[in-house]
């Protein structure tokens, strides 16, 4: 066993869990602080170098997060291990978190002393052997990007530097700085990269000072509403009583947003550090991490982080000798979108269901009636980073009203789906086109949906809008969790609105009438429109009812659920009108409004469509042109899907 950075360096170190040393964290890197011994110093330096560059001088990093695993990282990891073993080379094969660049999954990074660090994208297990051979042979020409140049490897000039790529250059990696770099299962690595310094500093301050720093930083909650974090903390801090709670809201439920999962899976100690700082600030001795059960790896990584933190005295009694006790429990949610809502989350922890009316706000009366603060994963990661790096840097980014950076998940019709961190106030255009690469040749962005089921669609004409809570609200969307779905001209806006409405109908807890019944009626009306049974009055109904649901609902789920409908109505009324007036779906998505026909010029007479048609609407002899009998066709679209030459067309 090698010496662990977290362990005593020699007998002179008196730190124990019972009598913790106040300078434990700083001493890990700068130490030893209580005694002077060049050996102890060297031991640390050596270990840190080992952590950063590997023991062998050749490090192979494979990202292990649910996203990359889904894309096959596990197989690649195995292939790498096998390869290293069969060749008998000396290499450190480690795991890391995810960089957020989904389009290049799974990737691996090779770094050898004297060689540039090379990242290979979309690696198949079968390519591993070739990649390693090439790299060891001093050739990096097939890499996707390099982290640095050494001028020694072949093909270096042909491969771009990572930091020169538009999708990296335009980002500001503030909270995600460690993602894809650090090993998420090792507290040692986090500390070697400066982790827990924020906590160390915070514990030396008075809670009021911390609140002041967060206030000066201008941090607003990243969970959706953008409530100033310092204010929430101040309210909770000022409540009387000793029993208070902090909760980390890791119940990321918005489909199309995964930045919380990414952060917690790739750099779990950072968010945990934020939670501990929050607890110290408001005076809580018990915290909960509420994780979505559908994201098991996130729960696993966070549990592991909690365990390690407990082992080294960062959780438990008398943390770092500052007389502050705090412990954390990880709770698996059983999956309901509404559980992300603060009061529903509290209900879930208490063993109940459904949100309740606010006020009283959780900060005054929350879990078991005690003052409770609930913060988003990203917010907490920001807290830890601000405490470590200082508020000045954070406050220098962003807009007048909102400081700092925010992570956005860009999916849909773009070439480079991924999770990117940019300063608040970056324009949508820059994020979608420069960073995520736009929709690709020949396609046109029609709209951008921001904020998931609670958000709205921003039309292409407003792409130059800077992303901020207020500007987005004005445009009819919300920042929400930061999920951005790019919609191109292949999608129908009515269908998009219907999709989000179906989501909220399914996720409405059913407690209050406007949301439970109103959303269902909105959904039914939209369905009618997409089926070609809509009337022009329906648009008015949608608008009016949408407004009512928005203003009368009990919780923010209902309060935001009509946004997708209202915003599409606002910007794409012509598409709605095409559906209700001309009974046409301009994007040819709504099945009942398209007609299938077989283009005789393309049909090869294979008969596949005929076999698959459930209503015998297709006739034709084998080898001859087939035709669809429109009166029999039920518009199931099977023939369109199965035709091998694409002869079935919509019109």
């Amino acid at each position: 066993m090698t010496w662990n950075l977290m362990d005593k360096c020699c007998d002179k170190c008196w730190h124990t869990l019972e009598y913790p040393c106040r300078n434990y964290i700083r001493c890990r890197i700068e130490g030893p602080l209580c005694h002077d011994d060049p050996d102890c110093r060297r031991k640390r330096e050596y270990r840190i170098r080992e952590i950063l560059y590997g023991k062998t001088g050749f490090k192979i990093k494979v990202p292990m997060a649910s996203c990359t695993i889904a894309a096959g990282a596990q197989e690649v990891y195995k292939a790498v291990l096998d390869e290293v073993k069969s060749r008998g080379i000396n290499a450190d094969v480690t795991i890391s978190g995810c960089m957020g660049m989904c389009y290049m999954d799974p990737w691996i990074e090779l770094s050898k002393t004297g060689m540039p660090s090379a990242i290979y994208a979309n690696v198949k297990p079968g390519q591993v052997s070739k990649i390693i051979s090439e790299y060891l042979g001093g050739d990096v020409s097939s890499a996707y990007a390099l982290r640095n140049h050494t001028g020694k490897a072949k093909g270096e000039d042909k491969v771009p530097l990572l930091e020169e790529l538009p999708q990296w250059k335009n980002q500001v990696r503030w909270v995600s700085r460690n993602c894809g770099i650090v090993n998420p299962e090792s507290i040692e690595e986090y500390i070697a990269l400066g982790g827990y310094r924020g906590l160390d500093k915070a514990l030396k301050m008075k809670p009021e000072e911390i609140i002041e720093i967060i206030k000066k930083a201008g941090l607003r909650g990243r969970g959706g509403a953008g409530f100033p974090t310092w204010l929430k903390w101040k309210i909770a801090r000022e409540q009387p009583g000793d029993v208070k709670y902090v909760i980390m809201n890791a119940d990321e439920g918005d489909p199309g947003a995964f930045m919380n999962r990414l952060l917690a899976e790739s750099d779990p100690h950072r968010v945990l550090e934020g939670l501990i700082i929050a607890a110290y600030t408001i005076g809580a001795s018990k915290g909960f991490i509420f994780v979505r059960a559908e994201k098991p790896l996130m729960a696993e990584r966070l549990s592991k982080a909690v365990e390690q933190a407990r082992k080294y005295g960062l959780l438990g009694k008398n943390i770092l000798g500052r007389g502050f006790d705090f412990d954390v429990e990880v709770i698996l949610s059983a999956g309901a979108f509404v559980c992300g809502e603060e009061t529903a989350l509290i209900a879930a922890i208490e063993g109940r269901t459904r949100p309740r009316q606010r006020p009283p706000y959780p900060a005054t009366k929350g879990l078991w009636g005690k003052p409770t603060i609930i913060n988003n994963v990203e917010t907490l990661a920001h807290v830890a980073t601000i405490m470590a790096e200082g508020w000045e840097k954070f406050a220098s980014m962003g807009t007048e009203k909102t400081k700092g950076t925010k992570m956005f998940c860009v999916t849909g019709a773009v070439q480079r789906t991924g999770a990117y961190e940019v300063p608040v106030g970056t324009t949508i255009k820059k994020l979608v086109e420069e960073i995520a690469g736009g929709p690709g040749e020949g396609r046109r962005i029609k709209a951008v949906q921001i904020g998931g089921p609670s958000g709205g669609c921003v039309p292409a004409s407003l792409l130059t809008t800077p992303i901020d809570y207020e500007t987005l609200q004005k445009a009819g969307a919300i920042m929400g969790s930061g999920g951005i779905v790019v919609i191109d001209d292949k999608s129908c806006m009515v269908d998009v609105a219907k999709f989000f409405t179906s989501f909220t109908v399914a996720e409405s807890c059913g407690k209050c009438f406007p949301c439970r019944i109103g959303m269902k009626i909105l959904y039914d009306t939209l369905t009618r429109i997409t089926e070609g049974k809509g009337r022009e009055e329906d648009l008015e109904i949608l608008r009016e009812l949408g407004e009512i649901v928005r203003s009368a609902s009990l919780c923010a789920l209902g309060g935001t659920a009509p946004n997708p409908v209202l915003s599409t109505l606002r910007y794409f009324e012509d598409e709605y009108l095409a559906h209700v007036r001309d009974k046409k779906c301009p994007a040819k998505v709504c099945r009942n409004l398209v007609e299938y026909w077989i283009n005789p010029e393309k049909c090869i007479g294979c008969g596949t469509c005929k076999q698959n048609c459930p209503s015998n609407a297709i006739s034709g002899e084998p080898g001859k042109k087939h035709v669809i009998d429109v009166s029999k066709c039920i518009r199931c679209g099977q023939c369109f899907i199965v035709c091998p030459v694409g002869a079935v067309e919509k019109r």
Partner: protein
Amino acid sequence: MQTATLLQLKHGQTKLVDLKEVVSFVRSIVECYGGKRQYLMRMMQEIQKHYGYLPREALEELSKQTGIPLVDVLNIATFYHQFTLEPPGYYIIWVCMGTACHLKGNADNYDILKNILGLDNHSKTTKDGLFSLEKARCFGACSLAPVIMITSRDGSERYLHGHVDPLGLRKIVAKYRSKAIKKIKEKKGGRK
């Protein structure tokens, strides 16, 4: 729908679990968590993990042993998506209904799968008990959209299929059908 499943469980399928075993299993869980209301959800998660679903008997037993009213237990069982009151098929096919997957046509894939498996609007599990079809929210693998995931009932196997081609669905189902049959046979063989 929920009442239907409850009734069905009450009348049709009570023999699926062994009552004595249920009592002792629930007791072990209640002891482990101290029977506290706060851990109700966790206890139910344990039960679901053990049986693959929440048998009515186990819930009744849980309510009896913890003193939490059955209606509250059922409230949680029906409110959260993770819980199911029906025994699922050997493999559960999860079709992602997230935004990215929807835009890339996963709703069609769902319909096609329903067709292939011969399910109607009221059933989620095939008659032979090999497959259940479920809708899922985003797996966080949106870059692979459209995505379907196939998990085994006990959760030990997990396969994710990205960039699903509607034409390939039949093949995928066939592959898992033979896999499931093989595994069930192995299990039976092993027991003898």
